[in-house]
């Protein structure tokens, strides 16, 4: 590994003052330009007398007995190339020297150094480029599951919504290159519209402690970022190819970066994925193919004092929805649940037929920053994004190729923040943001709008601080206020309006009465407060303790408020409620960890008490001429989530390592202690890795994953089956059995001249071709989950 260091922002002053008295002190601090992390073990040498000192673990160094005037320092670092700095000494001087990493690959730095922390005291974990690359042919949600405590709510294998410590959907914020994704995360079958290949690192902050990004992240924040771009004349890139046996397809992804010494850079990236029908151990999962295209371009000039960048990305995905999951009514659901095999199994095909989803997401960002000497750094960011979602149901006649749902969500955000880091012990951040969002539900679908047309305005303001109590202890605190107002134009069926009791409570919002339906104008305003406080204490370089308390409030999303009809793709009636108010979370988390060359552990328990927790659960059926449909209703209750994420690793020898992880979360209603719906079950992972650097960095890992059965679940409901002409139990909540999966992965890297390298990897998932169903896969009623799959990976670095 070779790094280079550049030193920036040095005020070079020619000093003509000659020293009289040579006993002044220079107190220096070497920190990383990007993230303010101290750089330890840098060698600081005074050019004149060759006096040499090292920076300590906090990046600090002291030079004594200096004369006033200019001195030239040579600063070198084991991982960087040597640079020269001229410092003006005038009495005892404090000098912060900011260095910029000049990196070929940032991920390698993250391996060696302390990871960049988004928060001081929250539980967080980072996935590096290498760990994301292994999931190039999968989804973001699959990659994130490598992090202990992260699971997912799936609809088949291509729609994967991340869940952090039992909470997902609108309770998780996803920041894609610093932009909060606005991609209709409110639906259970709406996965994040992000290409996993476009991100270089992924950080998961559990809980809402990262107030800077939003006060409503009751579950957590996922940050997807790019590697830093070196400040030198260079061009580099990589291409990844994945061949996948299950689905008989694969993906290709390429990335190219051109950078200049003066800070200019341009980076382009594109990827394409195509998979046909996936296969369970015993049968084909018909109509589960996917085709996906993503591309992004990023350019700008990054300097120390100021810089700007522009970013644009496009994402287009077309996902087939399992044919067998298309059901007509409750009797179809009953027979699907009672049958072992899916009702429709066809021959393998790459064709994606209806039902399917097609989502296009455009995202653009402009960013500017300026650093004010002696104060801090100001950021200004504008972003715009448009999410256009089409859901195609099986329709007939002239509507055959018409979408059943066509929603266009456009969001613009203007945000600014300032970080004041001039104080030695304390750091402050302030920020404000304004956001305007517009949703348009296209009436040309010929299907009643599930989500109405609306305009939404958000305004947020926050302040956070970090205070160094001692060299080993840092405290943090923050507050945030968010205002949000949603102005909707919603049609209600008159019968539904009355059934919900809105005719009594909301008669003043009726705009016009169209006979069988009403046009209404709900205007709903929310004031949310969030706050966070915590402490991080390092016992020594190896042991660390973190404590955090966060208060967070989340306003209901449009689905929770406005849903009022048959969700065709799910064959269920979903009912929101205008009366739903913000939910409030009080979360306490502790983490205790040890990290050494030979072994380490991390134990992170948490308690999340959520008042007015919004849940969607089955409540019964409604009858129509088309049969009976299950009804899912939103309601609010006080909930308690208690869990722990624990992990331990050990390097037995230089070549052998084992990893062990366990996570569990218990979710219950506080009033009657009944189980909450869709809480992930406990899971345990054990892995053994053999690594031999001499054999082209040969790496082989076997991983076992045991997922326990969820024993705490909601009671099933009894429904009247028109077909059976009697009341029957709808076995909709019973979780499937526990399962155990094995995964094998092996990799070798071949280096060529000029930094070119080829990495070859072969992976097998579900090695034993085990038949299983997962509680948090919405298609568990219809089919087994994926069978064995081989993946061949080729990566070229150039």
């Amino acid at each position, binding site marked *: 590994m070779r790094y280079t260091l550049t030193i920036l922002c040095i005020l070079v002053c020619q000093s003509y003052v000659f020293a009289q008295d040579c006993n002044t002190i220079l107190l220096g601090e070497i920190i990383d330009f990007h993230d303010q992390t101290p750089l330890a073990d840098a060698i600081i040498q005074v050019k004149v007398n060759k006096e040499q000192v090292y920076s300590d673990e906090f990046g600090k160094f002291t030079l004594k007995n200096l004369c006033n005037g200019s001195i030239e320092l040579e600063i070198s670092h084991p991982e960087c190339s040597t640079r020269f700095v001229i410092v003006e000494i005038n009495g005892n001087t404090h000098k912060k020297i900011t260095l910029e990493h000049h990196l070929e690959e940032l991920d390698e730095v993250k391996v060696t150094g302390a990871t960049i922390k988004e928060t001081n005291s929250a539980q967080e974990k980072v996935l590096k480029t290498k760990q994301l690359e292994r999931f190039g042919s999968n989804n973001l949600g699959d990659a994130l599951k490598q992090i202990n405590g992260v699971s997912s709510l799936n609809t088949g294998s291509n729609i994967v919504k991340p869940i952090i410590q039992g909470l997902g959907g609108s309770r998780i914020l996803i920041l894609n290159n610093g932009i909060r994704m606005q991609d209709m995360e409110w639906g259970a079958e709406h996965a994040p519209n992000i290409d996993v290949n476009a991100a270089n690192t992924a950080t998961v902050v559990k809980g809402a402690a990262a107030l800077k990004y939003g006060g409503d992240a009751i579950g957590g924040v996922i940050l997807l970022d790019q590697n830093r771009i070196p400040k030198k004349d260079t061009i580099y890139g990589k291409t990844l190819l994945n061949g996948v046996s299950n689905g008989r397809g694969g993906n290709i992804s390429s990335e190219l970066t051109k950078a200049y010494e003066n800070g200019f850079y341009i980076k382009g990236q594109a990827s394409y994925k195509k998979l046909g029908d996936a296969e369970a151990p015993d049968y084909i999962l018909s109509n589960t193919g996917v085709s996906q295209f993503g591309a992004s371009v990023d350019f700008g000039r990054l300097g120390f004092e100021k810089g700007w960048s522009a970013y644009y990305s496009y994402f287009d995905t077309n996902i087939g929805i399992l044919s067998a999951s298309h059901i007509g*009514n409750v*009797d179809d659901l009953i027979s699907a649940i009672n049958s072992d095999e899916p009702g429709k199994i066809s021959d393998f095909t790459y064709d994606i037929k209806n039902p399917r989803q097609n989502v296009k997401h455009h995202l653009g960002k402009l960013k500017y920053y300026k650093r004010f000497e002696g104060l801090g750094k100001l950021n200004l960011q504008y972003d715009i994004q448009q999410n256009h979602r089409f859901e195609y149901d099986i329709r*007939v*006649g002239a509507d055959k190729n018409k979408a059943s749902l066509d929603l266009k969500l456009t969001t*613009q955000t203007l945000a600014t923040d300032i970080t004041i880091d001039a104080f030695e012990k304390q750091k402050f951040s302030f920020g404000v943001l304004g956001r*305007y969002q517009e949703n348009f539900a296209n009436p040309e679908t010929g299907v009643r709008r599930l989500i109405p047309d609306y305009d939404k305005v958000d305004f947020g303001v926050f302040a956070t601080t970090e205070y160094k109590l001692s060299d080993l202890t840092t405290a943090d605190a923050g507050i945030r206020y968010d205002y949000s107002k949603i102005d909707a134009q919603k049609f209600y*069926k008159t019968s*539904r309006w009355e059934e919900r009791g809105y005719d009594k409570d909301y008669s003043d919002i009726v705009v016009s009465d169209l006979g069988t339906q009403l046009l209404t104008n709900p205007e709903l305003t929310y004031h949310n407060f969030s706050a966070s406080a915590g402490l991080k204490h390092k016992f020594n370089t190896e042991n660390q303790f973190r404590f955090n308390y966060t208060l967070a409030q989340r306003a209901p999303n449009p689905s929770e408020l406005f849903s009022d009809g048959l969700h065709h793709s799910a064959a269920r009636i979903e009912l929101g409620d205008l009366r739903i108010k913000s939910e409030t979370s009080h979360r306490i988390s502790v983490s205790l960890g040890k990290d050494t060359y030979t072994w380490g552990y991390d134990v992170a328990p948490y308690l999340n008490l959520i008042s007015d927790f919004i849940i969607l659960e089955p409540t019964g059926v409604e009858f129509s*001429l088309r049969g009976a449909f299950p009804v899912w209703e939103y309601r609010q209750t006080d909930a308690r989530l208690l869990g722990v994420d624990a992990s331990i690793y050990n390097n037995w020898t230089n070549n052998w390592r084992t990893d062990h992880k366990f996570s569990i979360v218990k979710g219950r209603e506080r009033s009657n202690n009944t189980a909450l719906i869709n809480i992930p079950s406990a899971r345990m992972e054990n892995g053994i890795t053999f690594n031999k650097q001499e054999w082209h960095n040969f790496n082989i890992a076997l991983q076992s994953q045991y997922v326990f059965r969820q024993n705490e679940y909601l009671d099933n409901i009894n429904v009247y089956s028109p077909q059976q002409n009697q009341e029957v139990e709808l076995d909709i909540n019973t979780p499937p059995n526990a399962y155990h999966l094995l995964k094998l992965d092996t990799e070798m890297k071949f280096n060529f001249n000029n930094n070119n390298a080829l990495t070859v990897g072969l992976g097998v998932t579900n090695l034993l071709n085990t038949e299983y169903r997962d509680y948090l896969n919405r298609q568990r009623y219809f089919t087994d989950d994926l069978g064995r799959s081989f993946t061949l990976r080729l990566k070229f670095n150039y």
Partner: protein
Amino acid sequence: MTTTNTIFKNIKKVSIIAFSSIALISCSDDDDTPEALNEEEVITTVIVKLTPEAGGTAITLMSKDDDGADGPSAPVITVENLAANTTYNGTITLLNETESPAEDITLEVAEEDDDHQFFYAVSGAISGTAYTDMDEDGNPVGLKFTLSTTNAGAATLGVTLRHEPKKPNDGTTADAGGATDIEQTFSITVE
């Protein structure tokens, strides 16, 4: 490098202008009233008329759901009693009564009869049904049928209309596939 410098400077200028103009646009609020949506091909009423083959008064089975498939109200079903050991000639009528006068959806089904099929499921004191109509390909449609009763007792008659079923099929809805337009079960007394 100077050329690159100029290019980037220009891009920056353009970006700033674009950014400010978008920010301005974003402030404009449009209060356009969304267009009301009238669902197509709504069926509110299913009427099964059974006339004794030997002559006599026709009896009517009716299911009526005014607020459609996703409205909260359940269909209102009215039935009359059937006579034991009798064969009836049946016809079925579908109406959209949200329009005035009511639209007869049966005509549409008859027009596109190769894309539709009714399925009748019976139990109890009804012994069976038989199709008495065919589409142009010689496959059953089910707008017309016969129904026979046995000795007195309780019975059910299930009526399913599938749009674009597989045709021909083995007479079961499972084999036929397609989209369900109607699925109603009438509980009847045979006396």
